[in-house]
């Protein structure tokens, strides 16, 4: 019986592999190769996947907590404060302590909430964040799976998160949460367009949706240099729309603490709240990571100065991503919040038409070979 299940799983992965061109690349492949020396091929593949999932869960939580800490220190810096600096060296363990506190807290909920959906909602949010994280090319080897529709997959996955927010807001049986959730739905549907179209502009340059190939193209210069004017416009649109996608200020209509209290997660407490909270930060990192990959050459070093040491790719990738993360924090701590109708006006009346025109310009540039290559 067990054998049958394993075989079935194996055949499914096989089918998927052939359909979406799943190539277990780098780290996944090497773990599976190592395991297959000890157990049958099918078992090795499944055990390998579980191990990868655990590794990424670890990255997820550590990165999430670290980003929360950075956010707090950056916020403090903008606000004439010092920020957490007592727990651990320079407050490094502060968010860890906060997480422990959240784990130990009682999970309360509303009485007439839809219990099933209420409990389900946080998982939508973190699973979508986790799946997107698996696609991020930290280095050539460090990427959980590299599929030929990578960018498309990322956009698709990132819109699953909003289901969790909608469910959470609706199932909480709280009017403030419901308003927050409805705003989130409206916002994500609108800004998805801009995220997609600005990435599409860059796809015209690369000619591939696969992340590893997008990086490969950039060995002749980062895409923001290759595509010059339309690429810069696309980058700005992507950062604006990406900030909106992650529901961060100035687009934090979903939480809008001065209007809705806490928005969609008003009724969540303890670890369930922490899931939403961590996912927000991971999503911010994912937006920064996508921008790094598509515009700034992912793990490639500037002018190929450390080409010979592949492991330094992680450093370059994180450095670039962190600059963009800082940019998003900068937005958050200096801008006021938009009103909900202004949010939609910005997308439908400004970003979308600019984006469409930008695609045409990019197509023209690619057609006329006006690309700058170093």
């Amino acid at each position: 019986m067990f054998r049958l299940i394993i075989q079935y799983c194996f055949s499914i992965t096989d089918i998927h592999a052939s359909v979406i061109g799943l190539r277990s690349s780098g780290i996944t492949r090497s773990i599976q190769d190592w395991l297959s020396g000890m157990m049958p091929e099918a078992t090795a593949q499944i055990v390998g996947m579980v191990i990868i999932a655990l590794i990424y869960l670890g990255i997820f939580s550590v990165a999430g907590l670290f980003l929360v800490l950075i956010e707090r220190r950056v916020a403090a810096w903008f606000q004439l404060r010092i920020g957490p600096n007592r727990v651990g060296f320079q407050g490094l363990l502060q968010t860890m302590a906060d997480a422990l506190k959240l784990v130990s807290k009682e999970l309360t909920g509303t009485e007439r909430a839809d219990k099933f959906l209420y409990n389900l909602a946080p998982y939508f949010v973190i699973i979508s964040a986790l799946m997107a994280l698996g696609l991020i090319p930290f280095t050539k080897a460090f990427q959980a799976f590299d599929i030929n529709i990578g960018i498309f997959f990322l956009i698709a996955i990132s819109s699953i998160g909003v289901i969790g927010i909608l469910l959470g807001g609706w199932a909480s049986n709280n009017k403030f949460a419901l308003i927050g959730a409805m705003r989130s739905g409206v916002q994500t549907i609108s800004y998805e367009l801009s995220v997609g179209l600005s990435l599409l502009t860059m796809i015209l340059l690369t000619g591939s949706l696969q992340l590893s190939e997008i990086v490969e193209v950039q060995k002749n210069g980062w895409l923001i240099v290759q595509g010059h004017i339309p690429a810069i416009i696309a980058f700005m649109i992507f950062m604006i729309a990406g900030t909106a996608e992650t529901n961060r200020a100035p687009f934090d209509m979903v939480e809008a603490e001065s209007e809705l209290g806490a928005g969609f997660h008003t009724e969540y407490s303890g670890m369930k709240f922490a899931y939403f909270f961590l996912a927000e930060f991971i999503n911010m990192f994912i937006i920064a990571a996508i921008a790094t990959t598509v515009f700034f050459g992912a793990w490639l070093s500037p002018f190929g100065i450390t080409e010979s040491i592949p492991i330094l790719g992680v450093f370059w990738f994180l450095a670039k991503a962190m600059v963009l993360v800082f940019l998003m924090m900068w937005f958050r701590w200096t801008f006021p919040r938009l009103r909900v109708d202004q949010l939609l006006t910005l997308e439908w009346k400004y970003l979308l038409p600019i984006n469409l025109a930008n695609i045409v310009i990019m197509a023209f540039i690619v057609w006329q070979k006006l690309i700058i290559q170093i």
Partner: protein
Amino acid sequence: METETLNNNFKSEEYFINMGPQHPATHGVLRLLLTIDGEIIKKVEPDLGYIHRSIEKMCERDSYQQIVHLTDRMDYLSSHINNEAVCLTVENALQLEIPERVKVIRTIIGELTRIASHCLWWGVMGMDVGALSTFFYGFRDREMINDIFEETCGARLTMNYNVPGGLMWDIHPNFINRVKKFVAHFKTKIPEYDQLLTGNIIFQKRTKGVGVLSKEDAISFGVSGPVARGSGYSCDVRKYHPYSALDRVTFNEALQTEGDTFARYQVRIQELWESLSIIEQLIDNIPEGEHRVATNAVIKLPKGEFYQKVETARGELGVYIISTGTKNPYRLKFRSPGFSNLSALNHIAVGGKIGDLVATMATLDLVIPDIDR
């Protein structure tokens, strides 16, 4: 027929939502009963009484010196000016000659209080429209004023520096220097406020044309202070009925005619400059003399009715005392600015979004204990 069923299926329903008494935007225990259609506000019903302490009734029990202390707890952000209002009423009733020194010091501290209050308002205003950092910038400057107060009066918020007949004690020797230092410091900081918030395109979009209160409505709602001046209604008590040392200073009344949230915002920023100029005119010319004239230990007001109004940071505060010649007032009524300003809320917030309501409320600058008393 078909469109009718379609309309029935997609008919929107109005619903109620309780904003407060615990809500970040109501700044205290104000409860607003909102009737909302989607995001659009149909009706705002303020529900008061959550922090009612019957201060007016307590005043009938207390002596005139004690009443001063109760007024701290009304509009706690302009506590000095509240104290001053009661003291002025009592002094006028007793026809006391107040030393010039007292008048000047009262005015300087009053204007510092106004700046401190506006600093806090500015920080909270930014926070209400989503710019969280402003809060800390506002508090940085407010903290300097509070330190000056602490040194001179011994308290930072509820100051109790005024007594009928003068001041509780003389100013601290450092006072003049520190105030001068603050004025110089704050002159460089108001442009920073403008950079951070006023000039921001999102902020202007959020506030321009939002919560418009016409001049006629402002007058008929009895609105006063910066809210009324934002609608072009010139009503500064300091200008029309100068009290203390305000008759010897020159300043402009901050006026805007648009009547929207941004106009009220600009009026307050302008008032910061005006208050600074008043302080500058007075700080070098504090006359020598007594800080207090002697009064009887038990103050008995002559029989009659006495009224005095002052301009607090929020508007016109009136103190109305009916005395029967005993040591307690027979009846004491405060005309608080916050109550009248709140009454205009339903009129100007209807038709806007929830975000508009929050921005509008921020510029009404409500202090709930002032409304409830």
